[in-house]
């Protein structure tokens, strides 16, 4: 390892260690957040389970729905990013005042925090999935190392995309006090366009068409369907291409917003 790589490894190690130690102070809230993460897909699954009782819906049987929403819960926890709420507070309440004079861009603190959070909450959910699949064989996925490896890549790219979206939206706090409202709106839209409420293939063609022109499917729907084995061949490559294009666009937006925002920064709080 080069000297620079060692410095970065130590920095990330220290940031993640602190994030986990803070988490341990709030064990009850971790349980609540995991429950919150399970609740929405559980309700959606309940509804589709009952609808599919009389036969497959759009090619989805009860088993398909169960696997889809279990995969969705896990992928969501592995890719969700709360950064717009953090950044909004950093900017409006002046926490950036002590983050900016340090020789480490605040984005690294956010990234380390994300890795720490995801490792912890997704680990918990994976454990829950394994336990549930022991008693409810329906949610067992066929053991397919190649699919898991491809899913891992899709999940990492989706996590990057969602992080960039959340971080960039949070940066809007340099201009408006409503940055988190923009993120709430985004979350509302993603309920439909990212496949949170139903698999995208079940949406009306118009909605699915709109979604295909935006970044939403690449945040969640794509990695979930990769994991359930519903995407193959050219569609797989198209999915990866879409993820990379949207990561590029949001990265550009993020850097532009940061550079412009930091010049406007009012350094609130004293």
């Amino acid at each position, binding site marked *: 390892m080069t000297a620079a790589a060692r410095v970065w490894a130590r920095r990330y190690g220290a940031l993640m260690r602190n994030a986990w130690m803070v988490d341990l102070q709030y064990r009850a809230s971790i349980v609540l957040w995991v429950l919150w993460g399970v609740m929405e897909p559980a309700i959606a699954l309940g509804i589709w389970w009952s609808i599919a009782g009389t036969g497959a819906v759009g090619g989805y049987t009860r088993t398909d729905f169960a696997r889809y929403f279990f995969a969705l819960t896990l992928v969501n926890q592995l890719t969700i990013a709360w950064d717009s709420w953090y950044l909004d507070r950093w900017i409006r309440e002046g926490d950036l005042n002590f983050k900016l004079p340090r020789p*480490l861009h605040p984005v690294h603190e956010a990234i380390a925090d994300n890795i720490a959070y995801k490792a912890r909450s997704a680990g918990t959910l994976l454990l829950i999935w394994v336990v549930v699949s022991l008693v409810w064989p329906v949610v067992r996925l066929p053991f397919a190392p190649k699919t898991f490896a491809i899913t891992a890549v899709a999940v990492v790219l989706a996590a990057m995309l969602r992080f960039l979206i959340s971080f960039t939206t949070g940066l809007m706090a340099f201009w408006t006090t409503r940055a988190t409202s923009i993120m709430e709106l985004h979350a509302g839209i993603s309920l439909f366009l990212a496949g949170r409420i139903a698999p995208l293939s079940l949406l009306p063609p118009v909605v699915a068409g709109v979604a295909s022109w935006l970044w939403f499917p690449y945040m969640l729907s794509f990695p979930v369907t990769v994991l359930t084995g519903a995407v193959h061949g050219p569609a797989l490559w198209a999915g990866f291409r879409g993820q990379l294009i949207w990561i590029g666009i949001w990265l550009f937006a993020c850097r532009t917003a940061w550079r412009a925002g930091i010049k406007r920064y009012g350094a609130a709080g004293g």
Partner: protein
Amino acid sequence: MPAIAATGLSKSFQVKVRDSGLGGALRALFRPKYREVKAVTDVSFAIEPGEIVAFLGPNGAGKTTTLKMLAGLLYPTRGSVEVVGFNPWTGGSAFKRRITLVLGQRQQLVWDLPPIETFTLNRAIYDIPDADFKERLDELTELLDLGAVLDKPVRQLSLGERMKCELAAALLHRPSVLFLDEPTLGLDVTAQEAIRRFLLSYRDRHGATILLTSHYMQDVTALASRVLMINRGRLLYDGALEALVAKIAQAKRLEIVLQREVGEEVLARFGEVKSHRFPNAVLETPREHAAAASARLLAELPIADISITDPPIEEVIQRAFALGSENGDS
């Protein structure tokens, strides 16, 4: 070469103005109006390495805004800054390793964890070698008397303990320029003293340059060899505190203790009576008459004790601001 040099530094903010009521809110929504607020106007000064300089000024004078511009947090509207040879906005990590910024109201310590965890994090962020980290931590622990608090969660520490830990966290990378905004705000007298002693000793040991703001005149008199007086964003005075006092305080105070009661009209013959409550009285006379007035007091009145002092520094500063504002407005 000065450690800190500011030339023609100005900062203005665009502030949204809104008429009151629902109508005003609606108008602001469709046709927002902005007003330019000048926080700092054309401020220039230079501070030599190892100097401790205090920023004086009422709330909203522009002290903190200037400090934040020097630390590279805020972009100035006009003017230039050089700190230890760097432009704060382009100096990057090399610049950031040389400075520290401590804001009394905003803390970097992780609230839920003991201070030692923030220190360990800073070791990684600033890439401090293990041996140096241990040596510096030992030094800071000794000077700031932190032994008992390093392992206690920050939320359980007193304000004074937190401020001391905050300083330690800010100094582990051994910066050569310290920007301190109200470092003793809200602390009791003992804790204030401890912080002042520490800052002097840090400067003496490491030759650091310190620029601080404070509302406590004791901070200024104990630490600073020089003051920058700022009001409404303009620099009113740059120089030694004693020289400012001599210039502004045209009067001397005669603090007397009387053996028996005398009327206020009698005391008034020797100077302006600032307070009178037997057995104590305070008179003020023009500086050049102070010696003669005290001699007459001793000769003519039953005096048990007398001392000649300058007016309280707070009053002098207030007077200086009042004079500065009059000049500035005219």
